[in-house]
């Protein structure tokens, strides 16, 4: 084992001190080359997910060891690592992107208004240098991760006092990246502040310098930066607690304050250094101090003390001694723990006072009307106020005054240290400071049908998915989504009703894709869209369209299919719908029943259908009878992964592009786990880019498809495929694979029959398989012709029939005798009644 103590990480290689200078000299050339790379969020989150599981499994004990080397405290090291792991979780990274940059895909140049060819995005600034102080053990790692979230190439200047935890941690993160891209974004060097030449060389490469530390550190870094380099300083801050007059005797609040004083030994910028007590009565202030003393005596032993240096002790002693001199003059009181573990410095003069920390708290009086003048001298440094206030009037007044005075965060008393995902950092969203907001405008006709630039990226959909195992369908069905907030049921053409849960975040990102699919298909803000899907009863059709069209800024007529057809028809006419959206079976019923009203209307332009298929014959009926100019089915969806495909204007029936923002799609051979060859039909597998929902990797959705390799005229680079029916459509019967979809297509294309078809398969223990094709009575008289048609065109069926492995019969029946799925009212395509043999 390599026991060398490595101080530097160059991409994925730990390097030795003697190599450092040479490597840094090579940096400009390497960076120039690597800056064209793009760090997709999914690459980062995949690596993070893998790293978390490695850490949780205990396979990386050296990370904890590296921390213990510097902090000498196993518990603290473990807590730090747990905190970092929490930060790394995909859902937290995604939430950060959303809160800081407003989107789960913030780096994608997208239309800010779908009707205009104006695109905006956040883009990485380029090379980000991070300068961290000593004794900031996890700050280096967290700062680097933020830089990676922003998509920058990150260079950390670490110091020896932090040990090499950050270097080892980032090395492991890179190890977890299967794409090999991540390493180009990561460099960590342990460089002393005295090595100014080296630091200058790094800074010369920077587009952005992030510096953590005090005024002096920030100033010296600023002086080294060429003009124009963005310097983001996370400087030192002061926080305090505030007691509204009504709560100054409240023991619970005082206990809570004591906890915040002890919890991190006042080592955080969020720690209270002072408590401002709303009173003019100095006896009340003394009483408050005494109560705080009692609380601290009780609470201080519950939290571990942090060892501090002679210098820090001297600072405390000096401040305490000076306050005793003040006390001798009647300006306050000093209350110390006998074992020197904490001290309370009561001062009768108002003002804010920084404390020498380590459980040293100033207690000072304040009047509400004096908040702004008292805090004014410090306003550039103010951060958190832990507020003890009870009624809404106090909370309102104090919050307003404190924020005006310069505070950035207001928390309940005792919760100054707590934070939440997506909380602004020192009053800004950090990732906005690490990125730039760019705009792109082009002539409208040049970017027609392009909602965002990711549709045009050459590497669109080229992610290597072989790193994931194929999802086991049974296990998947047992999985519970802990983030589920929206439950939807599938109509289930397979006959079974299934309820699935989604997080709002995933739902929202899926709906955004639906919106873009509509935009691509040509539906836009000028349309008046009537939504005629079934609403309520856990169905997603209506609500998904409602939300998607809202995002698209079209006019929406929220009608649904739940009311009588006459009312619907009248509303369409009255409110001048030009686009109708619904399920084919319902739309056929509506237009059949309200034929006269709708035929006379003449205002329809577009019919958008989903949920079922529509035959060419049916489409023709709508265009010729009702004047629809186009009939679209722009979205291909399933319950498991929601959005699986979108159709552009150039997609033929059944053809879709892969919406690569939310999924990746693979087509594997029917019998093996290998990708299909050219023109080969295979099983479609989906890998969902979830935000919070459980990962869905390489999941077989039951559909068949084949790739379309010719570039699409729409200009999108997203992969294009053609749906070839349900996997379940292929039934093994009569020793051959029979494709139900193929049967349907032959009948619908070559005969006058245009309605429902149902295939029933029976057997007995002795006889061959028996196929009954159920057609509506309109097919009566064509039975023989249909059998002949199928026999002549389906080679495997003919072989089977000739070999008497299978028998085929056509039955013409009224719809009432078909098997209908209870939940959706859909005709079940295949009913397999065979008993397992």
């Amino acid at each position, binding site marked *: 084992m390599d026991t060398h103590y490595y101080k530097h990480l160059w991409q994925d290689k730990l390097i030795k001190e003697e190599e450092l200078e040479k490597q840094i000299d090579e940096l400009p050339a390497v960076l120039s080359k690597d800056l064209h790379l793009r760090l997709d969020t999914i690459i980062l989150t995949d690596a993070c997910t893998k790293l978390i599981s490695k850490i949780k499994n205990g396979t990386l004990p050296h990370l904890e060891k590296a921390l213990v080397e510097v902090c000498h405290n196993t518990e603290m090291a473990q807590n730090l690592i747990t905190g970092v792991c929490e930060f790394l979780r995909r859902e937290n990274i995604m939430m950060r992107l959303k809160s800081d940059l407003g989107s789960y895909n913030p780096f994608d140049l997208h239309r800010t208004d779908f009707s205009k060819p104006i695109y905006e995005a956040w883009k990485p600034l380029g090379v980000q240098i991070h300068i961290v102080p000593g004794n900031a053990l996890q700050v280096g790692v967290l700062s680097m991760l933020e830089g990676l979230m922003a998509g920058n190439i990150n260079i950390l200047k670490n110091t020896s006092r932090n040990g090499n935890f950050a270097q080892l941690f980032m090395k492991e993160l890179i190890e977890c990246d299967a794409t090999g891209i991540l390493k180009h974004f990561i460099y960590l060097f342990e460089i002393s502040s005295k090595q100014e030449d080296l630091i200058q060389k790094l800074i010369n490469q920077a587009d952005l310098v992030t510096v953590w530390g005090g005024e002096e550190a920030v100033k010296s870094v600023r002086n080294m930066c060429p003009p124009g380099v963005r310097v983001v300083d996370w400087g030192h801050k002061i926080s305090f607690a505030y007691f509204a007059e009504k709560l100054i005797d409240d023991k619970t609040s005082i206990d809570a304050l004591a906890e915040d004083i002890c919890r991190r030994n006042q080592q955080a910028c969020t720690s209270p250094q002072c408590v401002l007590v709303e009173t003019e009565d100095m006896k009340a202030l003394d009483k408050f101090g005494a109560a705080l003393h009692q609380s601290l005596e009780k609470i201080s032993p519950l939290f571990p003390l942090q060892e501090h240096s002679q210098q820090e002790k001297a600072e405390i002693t000096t401040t305490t001694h*000076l306050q005793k*001199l003040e006390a*001798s003059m009647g300006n306050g009181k000093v209350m110390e723990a006998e074992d020197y573990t904490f001290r309370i410095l009561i001062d009768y003069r108002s003002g804010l006072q920084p404390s*020498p920390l380590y459980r040293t708290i100033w207690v000072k009086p304040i009047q509400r009307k004096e908040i702004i003048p008292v805090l004014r001298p410090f*306003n*550039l440094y103010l951060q958190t106020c832990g507020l003890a206030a009870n009624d809404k009037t106090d909370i309102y007044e104090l919050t307003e005054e404190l924020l005006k005075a310069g505070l950035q965060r207001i928390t309940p008393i005792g919760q100054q240290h707590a934070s939440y995902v997506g909380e602004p950092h020192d009053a800004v969203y950090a990732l906005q400071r690490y990125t730039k907001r760019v705009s792109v405008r082009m002539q409208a006709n040049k970017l027609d049908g392009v909602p965002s630039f990711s549709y045009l990226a050459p590497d669109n959909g080229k992610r290597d998915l072989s790193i994931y195992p194929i999802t086991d369908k049974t296990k998947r069905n047992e999985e519970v989504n802990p983030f589920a907030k929206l439950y939807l049921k599938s109509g289930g053409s397979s006959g079974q009703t299934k309820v699935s849960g989604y997080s709002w975040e995933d739902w929202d990102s899926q709906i955004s894709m639906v919106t873009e699919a509509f935009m691509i298909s040509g539906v836009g803000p000028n349309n008046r869209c009537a939504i005629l899907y079934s609403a309520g009863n856990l169905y997603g059709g209506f609500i998904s369209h409602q939300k998607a069209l809202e995002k698209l800024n079209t006019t929406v007529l929220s009608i649904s299919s739940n009311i009588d057809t006459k009312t619907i028809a009248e509303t369409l006419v009255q409110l001048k719908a030009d686009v109708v959206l619904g399920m084919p079976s319902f739309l056929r019923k509506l237009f059949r029943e309200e034929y006269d009203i709708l035929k006379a209307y003449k205002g329809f332009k577009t019919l958008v259908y989903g949920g079922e298929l529509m035959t060419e014959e049916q489409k023709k009926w709508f265009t010729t009878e009702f004047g629809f100019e186009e009939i679209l089915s722009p979205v291909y969806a399933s319950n498991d992964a929601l959005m699986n495909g979108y159709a552009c204007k150039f997609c033929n029936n059944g053809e879709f592009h892969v919406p690569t923002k939310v999924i990746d799609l693979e087509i594997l051979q029917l019998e093996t786990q290998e990708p299909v060859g050219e023109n080969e039909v295979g099983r479609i597998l989906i890998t969902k880019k979830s935000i919070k929902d459980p990962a869905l990797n390489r999941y077989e959705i039951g559909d068949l498809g084949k790739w379309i390799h010719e570039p699409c005229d729409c200009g999108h680079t997203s992969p294009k495929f053609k749906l070839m029916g349900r996997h379940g459509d292929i039934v093994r019967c009569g020793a051959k694979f029979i494709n139900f979809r193929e049967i349907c297509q032959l009948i619908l294309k070559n005969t006058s029959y245009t309605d429902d078809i149902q295939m029933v398969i029976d057997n007995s223990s002795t006889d061959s398989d028996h196929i009954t094709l159920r057609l509506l009575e309109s097919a009566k008289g064509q039975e023989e012709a249909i059998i002949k048609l199928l026999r002549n065109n389906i080679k495997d069926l003919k072989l089977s029939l000739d070999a008497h492995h299978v028998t085929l019969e056509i039955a013409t029946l009224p719809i009432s005798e078909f098997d209908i799925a209870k939940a959706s009212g859909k005709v079940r395509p295949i009913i397999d009644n065979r008993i397992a043999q």
Partner: protein
Amino acid sequence: MFTPQIKNITPAPDQMKNIWELLKAYPYTSHTTTDELYIEAMKEIIRFHQERNPFYKQLLAYNDFEVDQLNSIDDLSKIPFIHANFFKTHVVKTAQEEDIVMHVTSSGTTGQKSQHFLDTWTVEVMQYISDVSQQANGYISDQPCNYLVFNFEPYVGFKTGTATTNQIMMQYAPKVHVNYALRYNGQKGHDFDSFGVVEKLIEYQKEGLPVRMLGFAAFLNFSIDKLKDMGYDKLTLHPDSRCLFGGGWKGHADKEIPKAAFYQKIHEFFGIPLKNIRDKYGSVEHPISYVECEYHHLHLPTYERVIIRDVETLEPLGFGKPGFAQLISPVITSMPSHSILMGDMAILNPGESCPCKHETPYFEIMGRAGTSKNKSCAIAASEMLQRK
């Protein structure tokens, strides 16, 4: 050894006769020979302040201290003390306004300035102690000298303590030329005149008289660097030339080089013998000067006592352990700074540990006690630049 002759001091009132007696002792005679006298002198000065200064009276009461608690030198640590920083926020005088002859402020490198008021007696005693200490260290000479002062050029109304001390330091050898490195710029400020310093040093060298360099060490260091940059490898001065620093590296702590290396650098560049290069410790808060001996140790004059106190408990630590330095002197009458806790950390060593002939203990200054900045992300007081 010489016998100090008290001169130029207004005779002390009767109630300070022990102080008067103490001042007659040789400045570096062993403390044990003066302990008894010293305690009596301390009683006198404490009473002096207690009777005239309400704040001080209150302080003694707050600490339950009475002068009668002082019976021997072992009781010295019972005397209440005031932290030097206290004077940054409070003006506390014992002397009457009309008796104040000098008003000085600390050189104020960290923002807040402290104010100090000296009466005739204190000024005279301060100068007397300086004189006898310098005499005991061989600094007094009849040989005319050229002076280069690395300190603020005085102007009317200028009140910095270290500048005052430099005026005293120039009385120990006749002045030929006096030049300042920090020139008054006419706008109530001073600029370091590096070219001026270089010119004067070259002139002084040509003139060939001994040169005495006083003031902030940092600026002499910058000047040597400047001369080197300009192509001078060395600039040999008269061998009786001397350096006497004061005020430390304030404001330039990041550029500080270790004392031994710095002295060696001076020695090599100017040819000044190492024993002629000395530092001096003193402060406006407690204006008694401590001068380095030829081995570069700061011996206490026998009129002074130092207690080193633990940084956490403030318990006295004795020899060899670092802690706060409490300086105690019975001679300061204008302000209650006769027992003061300095912002510096120090170690006290017994006089025998130094090969020189001085018998009193000496102390090493270890730098500022306390933190100027926090290691954590919580801001420290000294970092916060308040709005004016």
